[in-house]
């Protein structure tokens, strides 16, 4: 059996070996995780899966005339011999690429301390799988017991993962931290004369104690699937569309893809060259904050070792910042916003941390009541968004509104528009923000979109 080193020693070995092989700059990340997943369907366990995974990623830069060549590698073989070999291979691979004048480690100041962002509760390590499976059983029973029309399900699933991330670079930065994520998901299937429907509900958090109660998850999943039964189609029309807090974050996801520094410098975003311009109504403020305690997108330092921070992306309707790592920042002659992402298998990129739309004053019910005729979207499918042009067209299902009241479920329709217009046409923002991931939004109404149906 090969002997392995502690995380910091592995990261430092990779950096040292790549330097010795001729790299002018190196960084390395070691991600270790333990995870368990299990699904219960009706009264039976469907599967239980447990795993331990470790992966080391190395990026080597080899200085050239006015720039550097670069390559990255990853390996799940962490024996010292394998690390040595991979470090040398990384440098050899870098030598085969072209000199990029922009390539390099950040010039900004690295994180000087590692704040505790409450991303992990050590006590959760002691909770055994059986206890978590009981949560899945409770959610499944609550969903299945909610109504006789729920006679089937895809099951209720739990997941827990504990990770340790260690990152270091040849500029002298080293940092590490532990994180965890726990989830519970329930997906019942309901039957009526109109056919089968499925829907789901879930809860996800850094600490087990922050999860929603299992029976509440099951009941909410049941409520959501039952309201879809008997769904009809609507005639093709132009009407207001309300996104609920489950579907609205997808709009922020599209915004993120358009303010990503790489899309901006490549001119593959409709928001390239729009910094400082009004892109949304004054009621709209979007914030990215990697330091939010317990946040699912929080991290004490970013994928290049820079401190994470709070960034106003949209400030009262005005595009106030892109999301940048050091590379895309240099391309745009800006500074990194501490938004570098880094997986073991890729060089740094830019991405959001915790990103949300600031809530407004009105409840979803009030927004519905003020809608003469329109659609409340509760599920979206398909990938019809083009960040280059902003063209948007996706499949949708939801609830139809007539005279300010929900009259019944609708499905098999598409909603379409141009994202630039859609943002400007936001005329109501709810107070009901819901954190179901690292991107969160309250309900949002767009005053008009094209709805295609019968």
């Amino acid at each position, binding site marked *: *059996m090969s002997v392995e080193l502690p995380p910091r020693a592995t990261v430092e070995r990779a950096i040292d070996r790549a330097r010795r092989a001729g790299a002018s700059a190196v960084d390395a990340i070691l991600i270790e995780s333990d995870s368990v997943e299990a699904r219960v*369907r009706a009264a*039976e*366990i*469907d*599967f*239980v*899966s*447990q*795993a331990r*995974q*470790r992966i080391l990623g190395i990026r080597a830069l080899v200085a050239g005339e006015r720039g550097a060549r670069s*390559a*990255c*590698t*990853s*390996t*799940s*073989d962490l024996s010292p011999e394998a690390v040595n070999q*991979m470090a040398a*291979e*990384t440098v050899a*691979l*870098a030598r*085969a*690429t072209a000199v*990029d004048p922009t390539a390099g480690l950040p010039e900004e100041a690295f994180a000087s301390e590692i704040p505790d962002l409450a991303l992990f509760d050590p006590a959760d390590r002691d909770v055994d799988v059986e206890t978590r499976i009981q949560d899945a059983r409770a959610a499944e029973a609550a969903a299945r017991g909610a109504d006789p029309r729920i006679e*089937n399900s*895809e099951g209720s699933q739990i997941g827990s993962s504990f990770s340790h991330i260690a990152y270091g670079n040849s500029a002298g930065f080293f940092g590490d931290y532990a994180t965890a994520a726990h989830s519970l998901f329930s997906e019942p*299937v309901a039957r009526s004369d109109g*056919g*089968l*429907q*499925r829907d789901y509900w879930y809860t996800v958090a850094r600490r087990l104690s922050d999860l929603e109660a299992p029976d509440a998850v099951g009941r909410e999943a049941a409520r959501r699937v039952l309201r879809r039964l008997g*769904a009809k189609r609507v005639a*093709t029309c132009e009407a207001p569309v309300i996104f609920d807090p489950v579907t609205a974050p997808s709009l922020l996801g599209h915004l993120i893809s358009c303010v990503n520094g790489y899309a901006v410098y490549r*001119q*593959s975003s409709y928001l390239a060259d729009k910094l400082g311009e009004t892109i949304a109504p004054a009621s709209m403020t979007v914030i990215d904050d990697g330091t939010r305690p317990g946040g699912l997108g929080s991290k004490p330092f970013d994928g290049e070792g820079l401190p994470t921070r709070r960034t106003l992306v949209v400030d009262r309707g005005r595009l106030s910042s892109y999301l940048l790592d050091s590379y895309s920042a240099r391309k745009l002659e800006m500074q990194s916003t501490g938004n570098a992402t880094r997986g073991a*298998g890729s*060089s740094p990129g830019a991405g959001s941390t915790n990103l949300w739309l600031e809530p407004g004053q009105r409840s979803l019910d009030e927004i519905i009541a003020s809608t003469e005729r329109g659609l409340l979207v509760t599920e979206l*499918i*398909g*990938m*019809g968004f083009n960040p*280059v*042009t902003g*063209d*948007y*067209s*996706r*499949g949708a*299902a939801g609830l139809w509104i007539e005279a300010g009241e929900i009259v019944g479920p609708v499905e*098999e*329709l*598409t*909603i*379409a528009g141009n994202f630039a217009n859609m943002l400007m046409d936001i005329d109501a923002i709810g107070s009901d923000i819901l954190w179901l991931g690292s991107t969160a939004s309250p309900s949002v109404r767009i005053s008009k979109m*094209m709805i*295609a149906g*019968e």
Partner: protein
Amino acid sequence: MASSDGGEVAVSFFRDRFGMDDRSLTRALDAALEREVDYADLYFEYTVEDSVALEEGIVKSGSRHLEQGVGVRTQIAERQGYAHSDEVTIENLELAAATARAISESPSRTSAVAVRGSGANARNLYPIETAPTEVPVSEKVGLLEAIDVYARGRDPRVKQVMASVVSQYQTVLIAGSDGSLSADVRPLVRLNVQIIGEDANGRREIGYQGMGGRHDFSRLLETATWRELVDESVRIAMLSLDAKPCPAGTMDVVLGPGWPGILLHEAIGHGLEGDFNRKQTSAFSGRIGERVASPGVTVVDDGTLEARRGSLNIDDEGTPTQRTTLIEDGILCGYLQDRLNARLMGMKPTGNGRRESYAHIPMPRMTNTFMLAGNDDPEEILRSVASGIYAVSFGGGQVDITSGKFVFSVSEAYEIENGRIGAPLKGATLIGNGPDVLTRVSRIGGDLELDRGVGTCGKDGQSVPVGVGLPTIRLDGITVGGTAR
């Protein structure tokens, strides 16, 4: 002398590198069988992947990844226990086996069978000269640089060229508690080209094409091959600059041959996967023998096509792949099965048990899914449409398996007026209902084509490479989403 059979090569590889000979495999399985289970298996994987990418005229980065690990699985009734580790040692295997067998409550031991076999496969669908990950990086860099120069020379409106090649070489070994030993070596290559075009008014559009399969990397280096791919990417980007918004509403749609077969994948294929049908959560549950498509429509899933992206000698449970007829002359006749769901439904596995990697449990998945050719002339099919749209290429798609509702985005489309192809359209989405959509097929062309080898299918968080195919078909009364009236 070294064997050229991929299965035999894989068996020697895991024996020589990790000490996994017949005795070790039997010992590890024995540990999984310490409780009463219906079946247990071990899945070993060693995958090397490399890629190089070009943008702004230079190959800015290269990458190389090594992934190794083993998964131990047990099955009892409909329960599955799974444990995986990236350390391929006998000690870790026994530990994983103890975790996996914990789903069984019965203490009585299952009798073990000695693992033996050469791992040789009855056929090799992807014979190659050189592992794609062993092709020198300089050749890959050279290809991308040539593509960049060529693309920029095609049209002055080409603003950005992004191109990448990805090579993968996967070695797998599967040992089952029935004593079976299966193995495979699977090459996979892919070339992607993305063009951003910009017109005089500063309006930008994107054109994308990709190709690949389980074949030698050298096929991508053939000048005529990659040039055609670049030409297509440039053409689509420029076409989109001139496109007008797609109208919304119900209309007749002609689908072009090849990649639009993604319709079958989304609308039909997923709904016929064994797991959803065993659980009765598919819109197609219990409908075998019923008419779900127009007469003349025959849809198959075929994992045995040479060199295709979706093809496999054996699936990830060791079952040889096959051609499975899903719909014959409009009648639903088959499901796609892995071992677990086949056993629970009293059917035979169809070689569709696939997984993303050793870190994932197998599920029923598609391979290459396509509709067989009909007799109609594609030109005549277009002429038959008074008013509608002609959809030639697609972006992504998605289906709700339970309700049967599907959607996909059209990346190249034209309006049809009085049987003639008119202006290009952008931003179109097609939506429909799986069990209904193929009953709307009114014409089937004789021009079956398979896609270029770019499909990746996602299910339960697992991605696997797949293929699709279609002849030109006409669909009557499909809902099209767009922004125009």
